Each structure stands twice: as C-alpha cells, then as structure tokens.
C-alpha cells in the first residue's frame, strides 16, 4: 500500500513538473518547434545552443518525427495540408521537398540565406525547386565505396584510381566473396538505381518539372539497360548473398563485416558503427568514391542528407529563419558530424581539425558530394520511387531487356492515374 502511494506521489510529481515546465514557456519568449528526424541527440544539442545564442529572442524546442523518411514525409505533409501552425522548422529529406514546395507549404527562403557559396552542389540541387532555393542545406549525405583492402589487393585492383562496377563484381566473384548492396523493396533500392542510371550518363526523369501526364522517363536508354544489367547480375549470381532481396543499409553492413565481405556501397554511418562492432574489419577497411558504370564517365554517387524548411503557416517565420541560420552554421555542422556522424553540406566544415581526425575519409566524402546525383526532384517523386521499387524487385528478376520498359510503362500509367501503386 505504502509503495503504491509512493509510486502515485512520484508519478504526480513528474506530471506536475512537466506541467510547470510547460508553464514556464509563458515568459514572453516565442517558442519555435523544430521537427527533427531521429539522430544521436545532435539536433537537440544544436537547438539548445542556438536557443542560448538567441539570448531571449526565441527558444527552440525539438519534436521527434518517425524513423524512416517515408513516414516523416507522411506526417509533415498531413500536418502542412491541415495548416498546422506548430511547424516552424522542419528537417526535410531532400527528395520530398518539391512535393511540399509546390502547393506552397514552405515559407520562402529570405535573401540572406540564399547564398550558396561553399555549399556542396548536390545539397544545393536537392534543396531547390523550380530553380529556386526553397530550403536551406543542413547536412549532406553520400554513399562511398567501402572495401576490404585485402580483397582489393588480391584482385589486383588499384583503389587510388576510380573503379567500375564490372571490376568489383569480377573481383568479388573471383574470390567467392559477396557485395554489400541494398536490394530490399525500399527507398534504398531507388537510391541504387538512380546512382547507376546517372553514372551511365542517363536520367530517370527527363523533365522533373513536367506535369505528371507529360512526364518522360529515361530508363529505356543505354544507361537504364546497363543499370538493369548490373543489378540483375548481382541478383542472379548470388553476389549480393541470399539476403539481397531484403537487404537494407544495415544488412549490407552486416554482410560486409562477415567472412564473405569484399566491397560495399553505403552511407558514412557504417564507419563509426563498424568501429564498435567489428574493429578487426576497420583495420582492413578502405574507402573510395562510388564505383563508375563506365570507365570513361564519372561516378554519380547517391546524395541525401537533411535540409531545413520553415512551415508556411508558422506564426514566427522570421524568427524561424534566424534560427535556421544559426543551426546551419559551419561550426554546428562540423560538431554535428563529429558527434552524430552526419556529414556537413558546407565545405568550410571539412577544414575542421576534429572532423578530419575522427573521419579520415572526410575529404572523400566532400569529393563524393561534389559529384553527387540527387534523385529526381519532382512533386511526384514518391510515385516514381515506389514504381521503380515495384518493378526492379527482386534483383534476380531484373533484366536489361524487359525491366526498363516494364518500369517505364508502369510508372507512366501510375502518374496518369490509370494504375494503382
């Protein structure tokens, strides 16, 4: 009985403290809500330091969005469509930005934040819509080619020079090893397809700004066919391992860490993760820019990351943009990289000594970001992405003769509203 009473009293105290905490917001300082994607606490830290730097001009509170990008988009789109005034600052996944910008859900970026000098090209492209910056790049992600030095050496590959997909497939095949790629029916598959098509000199979407019924896809091209050939070969030759049809980024990393690991394309989060899980692999670990499709054309590594937008219905858009300016400062980006492993979009942050000490591949990441090919920037990205996933999955069923055409027909029918997705 006594214990129960104590528990009740304790719970009441916690609730009361929470309520009082909420009441203390009534000190006249405007509170900005920053909807953040889950991370290791870095955004909350930046929110606290920017609140302090604002010196009473505003206070930033963070609110957590769901874990995966698609669910983040769903929640933000639903709230914005309902004119939610609490959406002051939003951490946005780049491919979904045009969809939110087109109906006017995002407040215009002020002139002082339009300057994109020193920001990596991929991030600027992904933050824009209709040739105009509609969000501000915060951190920019890119995939690298991670490899086991021993495997590359045994295959006689000079990893200081650009390598092609054919070369790494051959190297893995010759040594009975497996490649870490993402073949699951998920956004990661679209990322892979886009990088392959772009590196082959093609485009998934010819004119991203076209109306849905006028859109033209570029999959039925040499680049599209070559992309299908690579995915189909990895899928049907067991090069991606038995887990390939359900492999996401974590599964690829686990495969790479295992006995059959050789090469892997993945985001930089794998570096700190492997340091903890498989230090012996880190000793044998090398990294390079994403593989090329043709030896003669440059690679087009996937780019991702997070850009910051301000909700059009926010009551404090001016203050929100001031806060955004503080959040994306090169110092904050460098600190975020060091503490959370998310690479900066501002090149100046790569000069930070701590960044280079903690991430020896920082310069490769910066180089990769400059080469990066964003996914198609269109309000109908979701349809295109899911349409690609549906038709390029499972990887062992992908063939250059049929997949690009089936995919094109299906996606265009979906865009015209004639097919379900």
């Amino acid at each position, binding site marked *: 009985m006594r214990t129960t009473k104590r528990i009740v009293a304790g719970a009441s105290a916690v609730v009361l403290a929470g309520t009082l905490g909420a009441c203390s917001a009534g000190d006249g300082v405007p509170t900005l809500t920053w909807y953040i994607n889950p991370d290791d606490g870095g955004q909350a830290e930046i929110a606290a330091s920017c609140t302090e730097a604002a010196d009473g001009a505003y206070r930033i509170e963070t609110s957590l969005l769901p874990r995966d990008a698609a669910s983040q988009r769903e929640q933000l789109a639903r709230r914005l469509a309902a004119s939610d005034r609490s959406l002051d600052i939003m951490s946005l996944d780049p491919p979904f930005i045009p969809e939110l910008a087109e*109906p006017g859900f995002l407040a215009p970026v002020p002139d002082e934040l339009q300057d994109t000098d020193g920001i990596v090209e991929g991030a600027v492209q992904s933050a824009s819509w209709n040739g105009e910056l509609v969000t501000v790049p915060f951190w920019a992600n890119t995939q690298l080619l991670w490899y086991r030095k021993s495997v590359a050496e045994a295959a006689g590959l000079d990893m200081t020079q650009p390598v092609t997909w054919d070369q790494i497939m051959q190297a893995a095949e010759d040594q009975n090893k497996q490649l870490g790629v993402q073949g699951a029916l998920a956004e990661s598959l679209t990322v892979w397809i886009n990088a392959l098509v772009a590196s082959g000199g093609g485009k998934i979407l010819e004119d991203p700004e076209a109306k849905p019924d006028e859109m033209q896809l570029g999959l039925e091209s040499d680049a599209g066919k070559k992309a299908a050939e690579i995915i189909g070969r990895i899928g049907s030759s067991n090069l991606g391992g038995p887990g390939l*049809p359900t492999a996401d980024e974590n*599964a690829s990393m686990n495969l790479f860490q295992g006995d059959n690991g050789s090469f892997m394309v993945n985001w930089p989060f794998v570096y700190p993760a492997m340091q903890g899980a498989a230090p012996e692999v880190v000793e044998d670990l090398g990294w390079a820019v994403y593989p090329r499709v043709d030896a003669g054309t440059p690679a087009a590594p996937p780019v991702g990351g997070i850009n910051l937008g301000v909700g059009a219905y926010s009551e404090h858009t001016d203050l929100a943009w001031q806060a955004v300016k503080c959040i994306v400062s090169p110092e904050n980006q460098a600190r975020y990289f060091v503490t959370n492993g998310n690479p900066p979009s501002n090149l100046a942050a790569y000069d930070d000594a701590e960044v280079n000490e903690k991430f020896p591949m920082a310069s490769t990441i910066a180089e990769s970001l400059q080469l990066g090919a964003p996914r198609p920037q269109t*309000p109908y990205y*979701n349809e295109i992405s899911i349409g690609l996933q549906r038709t390029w999955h499972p990887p062992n069923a992908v063939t250059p003769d049929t997949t690009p055409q089936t995919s094109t027909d299906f996606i265009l029918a979906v865009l015209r*509203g004639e*097919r*379900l997705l």
Partner: protein
Amino acid sequence: MRADKEPGAKPKKRRSDRARAEARLGWMLAGPAFGIMLLVTLYPIVQALWDSLFSLRLTAPDDREFIWFRNYQVILGDPAFWQSMGVTLFITVVTVLLELIIGFGFALVMHRAIKKLRGFARTAILVPYGIITVVSAFAFFYAFDINSGGYVNSWLSWIPGFDENLNWFAYQGTSLTVIILSEVWKTTPFISLLLLSGLAQVPGDLEEAAKVDGATGWEVLRRVILPNMKAAIMVAVLFRTLEAFRIFDNIFIMTAGANDTEALSLLAYNTSIGRLEIGLGSAISVLLFLSVLIIAGIFIKGFKVDLSAGRNS
C-alpha cells in the same frame, strides 16, 4: 410542476407527460453516446464515400476534381487490386481453416483436461492472444529474417534438402507461410475460446447415450458434439473471417507488401497514407468495407439456416 398538481388534469395526460419526460431523460442519457457513435462510425464512412468520388491528392489541394466513379473504375480494372484481393482471400481461408482445426483441438484439451491442470492449460493456450499483433509480428520477423540473425533456419537445418540460407521474405510462398503462421499462432486461442464455450453447451447425457448405443469416439464427435456446437463454430468462423480479411500488421512489419504479399488493407493504407491519394485510397477503403459487409451478409444468412436446422433436430 404546479400544473401536474392541478386537480382538473386528466390522469392519462399526466402519464403521457411522464412518459414523455422519461423518453426525454432517456435521450439525454443515451443521446450523447448515440451521437458520438454516429460521429465515430457513420461520419468517416460517409466522408470516405464522398472523398472516393474525387481525384484528390493531399499535397495538391488545388487540383481537386470531382470525377464520379472513375476511381472505382481504375481500381476494379487494375490487376494489382485483384492480386491483393486474391492474397487476402487466400490468407483468410487458410488461416481460418487452420485455426478452426487447431483451435478445436485446443478447446478439447481445455475441456477435457483434468481439473488440476485445467487452469494451467487454459492460461498456456491463451497467452499468445494476449500479445499485441505488432509485437508478435516483430517476433516472427526476427525469428525468420536471415539479415538480422533469424534462428529458424538453423533449427530446420536437419531437414534433408532444406537450404540454411533460405530467405523467407524474398519469395511470395515463403513470405505468406510466415505471415499465416504468425496469424495462426496469435489468434488460434480466440477461436478455441469460442469453441470451448460451444463444447461446454453440448449436453453430457447425449454423449453418454451415444456411447451406450455403441458409438465410437469419432462417431460421437461427428454425430453428437459437432452438430450441437454448430452455432458456436459459425460465430467463431464469422468473427475470425472478418478479422483475417482485414489483416494488416503482420504483412506491414514482415514484407511491407513485397513479393506480391500486399493485402487489401495494406493497399488502402499505402494509397491513402503512403501516397496521400485521398480519393483513390478512400475508394479502396469503401471496397474493403463492402467486401466485409458481403462476407458478414453471407455468414449471417448461413447462420439463420443452421440455427433453424439445429432447432428442427
């Protein structure tokens, strides 16, 4: 109040006043609940019906257009819808059949278990039903998923010809097997609970009479027990069929619809929540709702026949 006490007032009218007051009180007490029920059940259905007549995308509010029944035309003419319908019906039929057989076995165990063990047997059998579907879906996913160290393959490695590298979630057949397995594991207790109540209603003297007449155990089951619990079986099958037809959690967690495992409810979810296509998604939801109504209608009609047949015998 004073008017009631007037001597000239007719008793009949007074009663009517009282009846009216009681009716008013009744409405005041039940009205809010009635209103809320209307609001939470009828309103969304009507709203979905209305929305399904529009081409409406949440992120393109200005392009909203009234298109009559074109959404239904697109859905009913799309192989993806029929594929989902096929998968949903397959899962429904297989799970309900398996659950009925296993559930009846469990019900017999619970019914016949000696008194000392009865409590334990009932608790043990009912445990899975107490677990939230999403949780059991995750448990099955991690048990079978080879990318996150699923252990089932190593358990089954003794079976000749079994490939230890089998990726259960890479093919339609194996994915559906795991989905059905998890569904059966989770909800068999529900069916067995309903069947247990049916078993308890079978008159013991009928069974004894049959045995005295020389009937074997199988004959007693077929001729005496099963016919006497027909109503309980029908209720169990109806409830489970309706529930199985709306399957969502297991598929969402395990395959997210990959390898043609997308059930109708997942298709509705992906269209209205994932794609934000409110019009098209509402139309799928309406079709799902109609399917459930049809199933319920068929069963209720079946009920009537069975119930009267039971009475006649």
